[in-house]
């Protein structure tokens, strides 16, 4: 375990906190109940972070994608897809584990003392997030439109709990106009948020595992990402400690690029022989494989 590795895995919580603050750096806006609307909003932040958060420094990639494809002028957004592929290749689901504010939020909730439940038996639910990505983010905004060809951002509007945490709640607390506009849709999304919050206490990152379309995209990119894990076969004693420790239900020794691996590094810390490590760059596939 080299120094860089130990730093990343050990200080992950602080990195998550720093990333959350940096993506929402316009802190005075929380008191004013206003939004930053400057040039930074032309760019996407890597994690799931609502554009309508008073502090948000950039735009949410999932929100931007839907806004573009939902407009009457475009049916697909090459610019945002390109940014997502770039981020996916450079970092993959490392973004989920280290940079996403909503991932951190769920992890903090998970620290609340309670009985912790395994999600292993609920694995099939993982597929749901791919369906959400395809249907709510890519298809519905293009297909379900008004007479002028304008669609709604379906995921943002009907599902995303991050929008409630970062947008609706802080804005409506300070801004009476927004408060007056809250209606049934808000109640529905508040219900989703409460469900996710409660589930997060008992399960580890339920939203990331089952619902997040951004996580789904980065999951697909994990295969080709430059950021990966390495398992040293000469050191591995096949004890299974890493798989038991993994809260994302991944056995890293079987697949170092598993779509669900968020690169949190818990396996690195659990490994008794220090056989697991972060790797970055072009790694020869063979080096990484465990022979049966």
């Amino acid at each position, binding site marked *: 375990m080299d120094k860089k590795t130990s730093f990343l895995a050990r200080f992950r919580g602080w990195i998550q906190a720093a990333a959350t603050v940096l993506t929402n750096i316009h802190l005075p806006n929380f008191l004013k109940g*206003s939004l930053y609307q400057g040039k930074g909003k032309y760019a996407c932040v890597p994690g799931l972070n609502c554009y309508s958060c008073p502090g948000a420094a950039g735009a949410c990639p999932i929100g931007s994608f839907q806004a573009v494809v939902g407009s009457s002028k475009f049916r697909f957004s090459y610019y945002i897809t390109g940014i997502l592929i770039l981020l996916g290749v450079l970092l993959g689901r490392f973004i989920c584990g280290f940079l996403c504010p909503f991932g951190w939020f769920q992890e903090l909730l998970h*620290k609340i003392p309670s009985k912790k439940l395994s999600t292993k038996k609920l694995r099939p639910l993982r597929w749901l997030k791919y369906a959400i990505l395809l249907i709510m983010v890519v298809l519905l905004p293009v297909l379900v439109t008004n007479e002028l060809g304008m669609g709604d951002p379906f995921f943002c509007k009907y599902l995303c709990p991050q929008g409630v945490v970062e947008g609706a709640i802080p804005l409506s607390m300070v801004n009476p*106009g927004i408060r007056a506009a*809250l209606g049934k849709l808000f109640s529905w999304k508040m219900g989703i948020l409460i469900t996710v*919050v409660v589930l997060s206490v008992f399960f580890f990152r339920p939203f990331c595992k089952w619902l997040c379309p951004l996580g789904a995209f980065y999951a697909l990119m994990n295969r080709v990402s430059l950021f990966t894990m390495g398992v040293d076969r000469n050191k591995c004693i096949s004890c299974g400690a890493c798989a038991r420790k993994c809260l994302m239900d991944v056995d890293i020794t079987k697949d170092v690029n598993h779509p669900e691996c968020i690169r949190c590094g818990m396996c690195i810390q659990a490994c008794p022989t220090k056989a697991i490590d972060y790797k970055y760059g072009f790694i020869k596939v063979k080096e990484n494989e465990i022979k049966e």
Partner: protein
Amino acid sequence: MKKMNRIIGMILCLVLALSLTACGQSAPDSIQDAQASNANPSKYTSAQSVLDEENQILNASKDLWDKVFLSMSKENMADILADNYGDVLKIAAEKIKDQFTDEEFQKLMDDAQQIRQLEEILATMPSEETPASAASTGVFPSFTGKDFDGNDVDSSLFEKNAFTVVNFWFNECSPCVGELGDLNELNEKVKEQGGEVIGVNIGALDGNEKTIEAAKKLLEAKGASYRNIYFDASSEAGTFALNILAFPTTYVVDRNGNLVGDPIMGGINNANQMAQLQKNIDAALAQ
């Protein structure tokens, strides 16, 4: 590290608890079911909840009340001197009594009576909570600009109208475009009262021609013929427009250029929002 986890856990519990109390304040305002009130003052935690209740009463028999609101022009309301909004409604309804059946008229009177009681409760509440103050006591910044047909406009347009409904929108905003037809309908309706609906497309500030062309097409597709105007983005009014964070947002401006009531955020094309807008309009007319 364990200790740290525990501390973070505690802090989080606190944050959670706080955020839940926050929604506890706002949620009942909006979710509250339409229940005729027995005017029990302790039931209401804020002025907003009283107003919501009033709106629900008006919405429950929307068709009837719409007739009444339509009839309320400045001329025939001039002799109404009642302070209580419930009384204003009563008098207005009585003026067009012949348009209703006895049963309908009785319903209107009952509604107005309930609103009368609610207004009395409202009057006992601390005044900073009532909407026509605080954030709303602003002035629409003065401006000079043009309408979409190239005619010069400036803030003197407010003086020429009994009241002006100013709707802020932009082309890519589907709820904004969705209500253009309703705004046009409103414009036709308020003309008789000397009112006017004006659109401000924030994408068209500075006279961006492409945006104006696209906006004109949208207006045409929605059959909207009311005036749309633009001014410099760097002007005071431009800054005002660009600081709006929810779209569509609709303001009511009185003859003197003052903003009346809280702005309506979100489309006016539902009964609750429309009633809120009507309240602002009535307030502007009353001045």
